[in-house]
């Protein structure tokens, strides 16, 4: 067949399909702002659940925050937790249903402020589930207030002149912190703003679920540094660029702990 004879209509047919939104994402329109990384993060988790053939055995926990409605979009059994308590719910489920695949999906305020105790102790006990941590350095749902991960000098509605660390404290690198705990098995920091990063993050989530499935004896923790273009008051593309320039230097991407061993960054 000659190239010039091929039309778009010829290509658009089931046998040529290479990418389609997974059925494990419902058809509901996502409640997220344009360009928000939550949608991508949701989708790749569901793609992994589908590809690993564990739809019937996976239970997810939604947090309080922008992704409180994650259960509306992820087409699997889900529970919705009180603010910060997702790791406790996950502990309750995993301890009583050890063969189920459990993950929590939490933002920075949920995981690293109000839920710090639940996060640290689930990690330290070595609970065998996955925590997906979305870090966009701001409270998105309540309107862009300062988060535990807001960068020094970064503006938010409760640090309108920029985060003054002397007054407001320092941003918390909770991912590095949990990597220090003997109970974590796999700790990594990824992003979903480019195709390459999405692919890497998906591999990380797959690794995390595989570790859980094989009962590798420890908590799997995947941080996704993400954007909040509404909270940061930028266009989606500008927000992604700002994230690369400002968030990544403070929250560098890459594996922090692999197979229970800290990765040597030297």
């Amino acid at each position, binding site marked *: 067949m000659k190239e010039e004879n091929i039309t778009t209509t010829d290509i658009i047919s089931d046998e040529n399909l290479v990418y389609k939104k997974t059925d494990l994402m419902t058809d509901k329109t996502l409640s997220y702002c344009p360009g928000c990384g939550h949608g991508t993060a949701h989708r790749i988790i569901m793609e992994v659940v589908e590809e690993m053939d564990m739809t019937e055995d996976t239970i997810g926990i939604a947090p309080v925050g922008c992704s409180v409605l994650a259960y509306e979009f992820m087409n699997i059994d889900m529970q*919705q937790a009180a603010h910060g308590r997702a790791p*406790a*719910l996950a502990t309750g489920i995993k*301890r*009583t249903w050890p063969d189920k695949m459990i993950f929590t999906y939490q933002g920075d305020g949920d995981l690293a402020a109000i839920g710090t105790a639940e996060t640290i*102790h689930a990690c330290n006990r070595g609970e065998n589930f996955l925590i997906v941590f979305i870090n966009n350095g701001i409270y998105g749902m309540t309107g862009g207030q300062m988060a535990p991960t807001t960068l020094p000098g970064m503006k938010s509605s409760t640090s309108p002149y920029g985060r003054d660390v002397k007054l407001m404290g320092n941003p918390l690198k909770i991912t590095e912190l949990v990597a220090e705990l003997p109970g974590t098995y796999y700790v990594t920091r990824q992003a979903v703003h480019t195709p390459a990063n999405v692919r890497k993050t998906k591999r990380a989530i797959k690794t995390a679920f595989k570790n859980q499935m094989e009962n590798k004896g420890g908590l799997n923790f995947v941080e996704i540094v993400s954007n909040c273009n509404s909270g940061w008051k930028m266009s989606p593309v500008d927000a992604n660029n700002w994230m690369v320039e400002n968030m990544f230097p403070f929250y560098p991407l890459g594996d922090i702990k692999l197979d229970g061993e800290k990765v040597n960054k030297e």
Partner: protein
Amino acid sequence: MGELRLMKGNEAIGEAAIRAGVDAYFGYPITPQSEVIEYLTAEKPEERTGMVVLQAESEIAAINMVYGAAGSGKKVMTSSSSPGISLKMEGISYMAGAELPCVVLNVVRGGPGLGTIQPSQADYFQAVKGGGHGDYKMIVLAPASVQEMADFVQTGFDLAFKYKTPVMLLSDGVIGQMMEKVELNDAVPRWTEEEIVEKSSWATTGKKGRERNIITSLDLDPSSQEKHNQKLQAKYREIIEKEVRFEEFQCDDAEYLFIAYGSSSRIAQKAVKIACERGHKVGLLRPITLFPFPEKKIQQMIAQLKGILTLELSAGQMIEDVRLAVEGKIPVKHYGRMGGIIFTPAEIVEALEQKIIGG
């Protein structure tokens, strides 16, 4: 006939939980109820029945572990004492909203704040009126003996699963700490995974051969949130209709009535005897369920009564429910002690004579 043992109330709860086929206990130590988790960890229930016992990092974490496991259809319980129960209230409200079954034991101590480790009944309002935020109720059972501590575990779970609601066992430091003879039921096996999937088709047990299940207390649409609230209220009305439990003691020809629950009711029994010896016709009504409250029973007795004395180890909390039932038709007074002090039968009779008979 079950096995007879001499046990503390807190230990009896632990043993009864293992025998009732409870799947998990999540707790955090606090006086005067730490023996519950101590007993459970010593008994190795993971070997006896496969029951999970875990000491959480806080009462908040413990109740949320209960939420997670209950949301997945398991029989789960937690226990604490007053300050710890305050911390659990967030989780209890979420469980009421999400309609999840569980049993929560409160071995009440004196408050407010850190208060005292001595017994008290000052958490009645918190238990009976909701405690957390939102329009919700818990079924509240008030054990008055070590035997009832043990028995109410099963009763509590039966009610919790029947109505998909948290059930509180409102005990106190007296019942939790004292030793009595207790007859323990034979152990029943824990539910199998297949039984759970069948019994609790609403639970998140994995989306297998059905649509997904969602456990949540959130509904942002006002009209469906109102509908959900109306459904909860209808459930509470059904509970009020069907689940009132109480015990009467010499009520038939009583002219005066003591109303007391839990440990107070035991002291009140002795007070009834002393009062009778002094020529007063006194009976005792012991509410076993505090929600639902035996309102109708009280109303049926009003015609024969000259007055009611409520006896509580508090500033007077249950008295408000008694007054709501009585609607001002006869005098209702309160006698109580606070701060961990327990009244004597003689004090009660004196209060009866001064506040009701002489008043």
